[in-house]
């Protein structure tokens, strides 16, 4: 695939977007929300009712 100009930097732009989203998610304390979920046995994951 050939591309030039700013498109050559698309991977870096995408990585920047990802990191921004990740950092914002950390700042608003989403890891705690994930933690609150992940420390309990997820019956749904296991297929239990």
């Amino acid at each position: 695939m050939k591309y030039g100009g700013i498109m050559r930097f698309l991977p870096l732009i995408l990585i920047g977007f990802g990191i921004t989203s990740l950092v914002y998610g950390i700042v608003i304390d989403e890891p705690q929300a994930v933690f609150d979920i992940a420390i309990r046995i997820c019956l749904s994951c296991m297929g239990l009712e």
Partner: protein
Amino acid sequence: MKNIKRSLVQFFTAIFANSNLPGFIQGRIYQGSLKQVCVPFLNCYSCPGALFACPVGSIQTVAAYGGRFSLYVFGLIFTFGAIAGRWICGWLCPFGFFQELMAKLSIKKYAIPRVLRLIKYLALFLTVLLPFVWIDPLTNLASPYFCKYICPAGTLEAGIPLLVTNGDLRSLVGGLFAFKLLFLFVWLILMAITYRPFCRVLCPLGAFYGLLNKYSLYKLNIEKSHCSSCGSCSIACPMNLQVTEELNSPECIRCLQCKKSCPNHALEYKVAIVADQRTSLPANQ
């Protein structure tokens, strides 16, 4: 030609991500602070050995029970995808590794019809959307539907080990678990007769990384002047890709088998913003 380095990376990643060994004996899951951290690959956080959270489970459960889209999980997998695309599937995912081990069984292998590969994009769309918009008739609550009704990794890594070791959970076994066990059994058969069927047909994370495969920083490049069109790369590709025509296809898991098989060393994995200058060289230079 086998890629021992990749197998070792897969093996140690699987061990590292599931190294809470007492959990397998006690029938309990790890509840320490590492569970805040999501891994970029499919690894059920209800596995007794799991030290980290699964991104597919987390993004759904935050949506179902928290009513919001998790930027933390999205940002994490987007960053990994933008750096390496489906390299994560090929080199890190423990469930992918398990499927590769199953594929080593000496049973006749079959190809997967290409059209079935589209199902995983539907799975990705529904995985993200459904917890926001659909109430589960079984519980009258939103649920992580992919985990609950589909994910065979959850049944294999969490359901079976916990039911074996934790007697309290056995009273909860019902029709849903029977369905998931049957579903897992079907997938185990498919894993034995074809290569990585779950990754190719149903994995929403594989679909997500696949969308970024063409645009990731680390990608496959071809030195056209060195390519003799012998087809060795396509023959070696375990994902049944026509490598030179489908360079960085959403299905490519970057296992490097094509690179190893090329007699002319025409294929290289490189950082994209550097490598594109070389692919544009005319053949006579």
